[in-house]
Each structure stands twice: as C-alpha cells, then as structure tokens.
C-alpha cells in the first residue's frame, strides 16, 4: 500500500448554534483514494460537518485542511482553486431549476474554465453519459427528471471539473432498493475509474458495507473513525447498536455474499466483508 497523506484533515472542530453545541473537538481524516462514509444519528451534525468542510459554515473553532490548506483562514478568492478540485452532490440535487441538465453540468465549467462552446457541450455530454443518464436527459429540466435521475445529474455536475474529491450528501436516500444498489455501483465505478476520493454522508447500511473503506461515526459531538470491519466491533454502545441492530444484520450478510461472489469492486483489500 502506498503512503497516503490526508486529503482532508479536520482537527478540533467546534460548531455551535445558539446554546446548542453540535461539534465539540471533532477530528476527521480522509485519505486519498478511499470512500469515507460519515454516519451518525439524525441531528448529530453530519450535514453541518459537510458544510464546514465546504466552507459554507464557519466553525467556531478548529481547522479544516483540504490538501494541506486550512480553508477556515482563506479568503473567497484563495478558496477558488480549492473549490475547483472538489465536486459536491447535495442531498436534494440542488440542480438549478431554470437550466437544463446540460447547462447545469456546464455551469462550473463556465466559471472555472475557458472552453469553446462545442467542446463544453461534448464534455458535459460525456459527464452525463458517465453517470449513466440517457442522452436525451441532457436537454430536460430538473423538474422533468425522476428522483434517481436528479441525483445522477447532480453527480454529473459535481464531476464537471474532473475533481479529485467528491462529496455526496445522502446519495441513496429516497431511492428504491434497486436504484440504491445501482447508485452504489456507480459510486464504486467512479471511484475506480476516475481514482476519486469520495466522502459520503449516508444512513444506508447497505451502502456503507458495499462502498466504504472507512467510516466515521459522529457520537457525542466527536467522531470515531475506523475501517468498516473494525468499526462494527467498536466498544461505544451507539456504534454497536448502529451496526448490530436489526436493520444492520441483513446489510452485512448481503455485503458478505457480494464479496464472496467476487462482486466486490474494491480498489484495495479494505472493503467491509462484515465478518
């Protein structure tokens, strides 16, 4: 295994809304080429953590380093090159409703790259095909797409600038089991083919066992992170309950079968086999 430097490094993060303390000294580390899952109970501050990493929420204390640069200390102009190296697919897609899917995908390109319009069209269509959307979807408006297609379109837009890092906020929420599985396959495919580092917030245990290398669980306003196979045996009662509850059992069995079928598409040997 090559030595990995942390692509994202969060240290001592503190976030507070009024009197409510959301994060209190949270540490998180994401290495290159891994799929990192952020897990936690509802209201535990997963989205706030993501917003802090993206610079949308200014933390009360702590540092957030992306590729070694502390983004909490950078100006908007200094952040621009960093923002060009990651893509974000928000939970609800956050597609611009007045633009077609093609235009949505082109918007980041227009902001960061100087491209001729035909080249941009080709590039955007490529991204749209890459995420498994039919070609005619490119000319549709977000309102004309199904939930799964909106999420795929959001990923296409997140990939517009060929980022090294992809953030996914609950990518499989609101999808039927078949679509969710197809989505996990897409995540694995993108990770493998584009050598992406993926950070995803998820509640979906099937997704975690199938796609993630490492998992960070937010408990008591801090994060406990480890590989998938080790985190399930963590002594913390919440984490045990999370991964050993009634819902978790089926997911682990399914993931285990998938792995022994040779269906595991992991880039290395760290995929959770749930053993």
């Amino acid at each position, binding site marked *: 295994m090559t030595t990995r430097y942390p692509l994202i490094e969060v240290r001592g993060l503190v976030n507070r809304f009024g009197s409510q303390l959301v994060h209190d000294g949270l540490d998180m580390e994401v290495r290159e080429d891994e799929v990192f899952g952020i897990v936690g109970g509802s209201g535990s501050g997963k989205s706030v953590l993501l917003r802090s990493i993206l610079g*949308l929420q200014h933390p009360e204390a702590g540092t957030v380093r992306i590729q070694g640069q502390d983004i909490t200390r950078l100006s*908007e102009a200094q952040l621009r090159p960093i*923002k060009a190296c990651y893509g974000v697919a928000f939970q*609800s897609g956050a597609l611009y409703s007045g633009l077609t899917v093609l235009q949505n995908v082109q918007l980041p390109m227009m902001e960061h790259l100087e491209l001729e319009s035909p080249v941009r069209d080709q590039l955007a269509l490529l991204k749209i095909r890459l995420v498994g959307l039919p070609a005619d979807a490119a000319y549709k408006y977000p309102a004309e797409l199904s939930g799964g297609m909106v999420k795929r379109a959001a990923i296409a837009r997140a990939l517009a600038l060929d980022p090294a890092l992809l953030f996914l906020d609950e990518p499989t929420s609101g999808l039927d089991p078949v679509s969710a599985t197809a989505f996990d396959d897409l995540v694995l495919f993108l990770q493998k083919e584009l050598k992406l580092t993926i950070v995803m917030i998820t509640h979906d245990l099937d997704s975690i066992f199938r796609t993630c290398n490492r998992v960070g669980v937010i408990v008591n306003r801090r994060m406990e992170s480890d590989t998938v196979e080790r985190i399930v045996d963590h002594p913390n009662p919440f984490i045990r309950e999370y991964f050993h509850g009634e819902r978790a059992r089926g997911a682990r069995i399914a993931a285990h079968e998938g792995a022994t079928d040779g269906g595991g598409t992991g880039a290395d040997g760290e995929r959770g086999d749930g053993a």
Partner: protein
Amino acid sequence: MQLNEEVDALVATGVDPFEVLVVPRVLGFVIALPLLTVIADLVGLAGGALLCRYLLEMPLTQYINRMNEAIAPTTFWVGIIKAPVFAVLIALAGCYRGMQVRGSARELGHKVTVAVVQAIFLVILADALFAILFLKMDV
C-alpha cells in the same frame, strides 16, 4: 431562494451568488423600469387623447397643442430619473428577502409578501425625497 440548497451549490462551486443572482436582476430592473415608464407615459397620453376625442369631442390637434402647453418636458425627465432609483430599491428588496427563503414553500410566499410591502414602502419614501429634492431645485 434556497429551497433545495441551490445557493450552497453555487458557493461550493466557487460562484459568487451575488454576482449571478443579484447583479443581473438589479441591472435588468434598472434597464426595464425606465422603458416601462416610457410605455406607461405613452399609454397615459393615448388614453387622455381618446377620452378627449370621444367624451369631450376635442379634436386631436387641439389635444396635442394643449398637452405641449400643460406638460413641460421636465415632467417626462423627472419620471425617467426616478425610475432607475426605484428599480434598484425594488430589485434589492426582492433579492434581499429572496435570499432569506429557507426550506419551505410557505416561507417563500411569506417572504414575497414582505418584499412587496417593503418595496412599496421604499418607493414611496424615495418618491417623497425626490419631491423635496425637485422642489428645492425648483423643477
């Protein structure tokens, strides 16, 4: 509005929401409102002409002559000068409240009402200030 994290998506892409959401609206308004003023002026005069012609049976030529006597060109220019100022106020009130919309469609409706009321208030206030200004300038 940010019902579905669209503004966050803009910021995360490195796009300044002010630049792509507020500036175009303000500029559009600054261009459109004076044009609208011209159209409103023309329609108003045409309405007056029709009324005089058919209700008061005043010939059109006489109406135009009287109009030139009654309305100084400054009246037109006063309207054109005020329009872009009102445009900026209305657009900013709308965008300011629009940016505050979070989460629900109900919130959207509420903020629209607030924006309309505040825009009207600001326009009346600005109009009063203009009235004082023009009075001092003796136009």
